[in-house]
């Protein structure tokens, strides 16, 4: 087993616009290595866009994202930052996992093949070993029986769990979760969050989780980032940020959810 070493994340003054719609208006926050950060915020506030930027799935217009010692998309040589080629960028991304809001499973591959694709093709690890690990992962999210089915044959919640397992199979040092439990029933939410929590502790992984589960944000995460309208409205320890007295915005957000 490769020993994963955790990475800190530093987002500073990131801007991103789609045509005339400025989605990220200068987002900055810091995620220490080996911690769990929850990103909360209303729908459309730019949470998914932020995660995609950290992975450089979309280019940002300005600002800087640092993961560990690296600036995402660049490489330092003699004080200057050179843009990375596709190959090198992929090497950066190998250490960053991502669970998409709409899963994006590979429909032409079985569940098991979805999981081993990354470890085998990208990391070049042996078939036997990766398949064993994948089956273990599947079992831990309650899907041992579905290994040989295709994503199209799964229910929504099952697909979501496969997506989580696919990201974990790469054993990344940083994982970006985009609402990883939205399609799960309360019982499973608990189980899956347990899996994630264990992972965070065991293998010293840094996690950024976009979520609507206030409970998760409060109980599990070391830090909460509250986004609204493309900016970070508040960030810090959960107790502080999720204090209804802090801002009317957060108050109304929380009020509803505790109903």
């Amino acid at each position, binding site marked *: 087993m490769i020993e994963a070493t955790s990475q800190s994340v530093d987002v500073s003054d990131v801007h991103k616009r789609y045509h005339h719609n400025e989605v990220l208006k200068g987002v900055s926050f810091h995620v220490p290595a080996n911690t769990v950060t929850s990103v909360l915020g209303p729908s459309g506030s730019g949470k998914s866009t932020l995660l995609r930027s950290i992975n450089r799935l979309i280019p940002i217009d300005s*600002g800087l994202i640092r993961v560990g010692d690296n600036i995402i998309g660049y490489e330092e040589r003699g004080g200057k930052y050179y843009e990375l*080629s596709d190959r090198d960028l992929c090497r950066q991304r190998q250490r960053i996992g991502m669970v998409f809001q709409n899963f994006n499973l590979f429909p032409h591959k079985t569940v098991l093949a979805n999981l081993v694709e990354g470890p085998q093709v990208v990391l070049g690890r042996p078939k036997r070993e990766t398949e064993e690990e994948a089956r273990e992962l599947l079992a831990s999210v309650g899907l041992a029986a579905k290994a040989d089915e295709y994503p199209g044959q799964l229910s929504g919640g099952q697909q979501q769990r496969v997506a989580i397992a696919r990201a974990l199979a790469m054993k990344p040092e940083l994982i970006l979760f985009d609402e990883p439990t939205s399609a799960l029933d309360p019982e499973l939410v608990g189980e899956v969050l347990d899996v994630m929590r264990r992972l965070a502790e065991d293998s010293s992984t840094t996690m950024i989780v976009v979520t609507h589960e206030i409970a998760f944000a409060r109980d599990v995460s070391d830090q909460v980032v509250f986004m609204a309208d493309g900016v970070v409205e508040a960030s810090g320890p959960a107790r502080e940020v999720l204090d209804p007295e802090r801002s009317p915005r957060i108050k109304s957000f929380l009020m509803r959810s505790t109903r």
Partner: protein
Amino acid sequence: MSTPTHETAPEVVTHFVSLKHPWRIAGIVLVLILALLLVITVATNERFQWDVVVGYLFNPRILAGLGMTIFLTFIAMVIGLALGVVIAVMRTSASRTLRWSSSFYVWFFRGTPVLVQLVFWYNLGYLFPELTFGIPFLEPFVTVDTNSVITPLLAAILGLGLNEGAYLAEIIRAGILSVSTGQREAATSIGMTRYQAFRRIILPQAMRVIIPPTGNETIGMLKSTSLVSVIALSDLMYSAQSIYSRTFEVIPLLLTASIWYLVLTSLLSIGQAQIETHFGRGALAEAGVSGRGMSHLLRRGGKAATR
């Protein structure tokens, strides 16, 4: 783009250097040199006889052939598209009969050469001297001389159109396959009939995938029309051939024809690009307004600013 957007905290200015693409530049240079060489050799080579080429460009026979090419291509594609949609839908139908008969159609018309089909239609009179219309077992309404009904033009239209239908059916079927099941379910769930769902939801999304190969077929048809020479019609290419078989100016006349084909193809390609943009609306919007299909992901990342 690389200008600082926030004046706050003007710390260390980091220098960012965009990715260089030495191979790309080498590629550009190579392509340009090759293109230049080609243009020079072609333009200056006496053996191309450019004066003859230009002289024939508006020759009445060539223009008549051009007209025939355009006319036949247009009609054949219209018939082919109509047939193609029907057959593609039949091939994905629930009814075994419809599926089998449409598969048979595709098999038969893709399987036999157009040339043979043209000869067959043209010589229908040889095989069936009279055509009879009426209800079976009753006195026929009309009986006509086959050769007078199946004019060469009709034979050409039948031959090319029926044949093209089989090819387009496959293309449209591929298009239908590319639309996710969820889309049909969504259409059905708001109460659309099968026809409405196909017409308004499935087909428009399939179009993105249907158009490029249909462009191929249309451009291919421009050239296939020369097969009608076997039934005494003369299209663009055959007109050129019939001139050079008299004058022996083979290469210049092939060039004349090629120029017209290039003109037609260019017009079609422009049309194709526009239809593609039209049907790609949703996907293009997703990729950013100025984007081209999925290319934004392949494109060099955005520029980072100083911090």
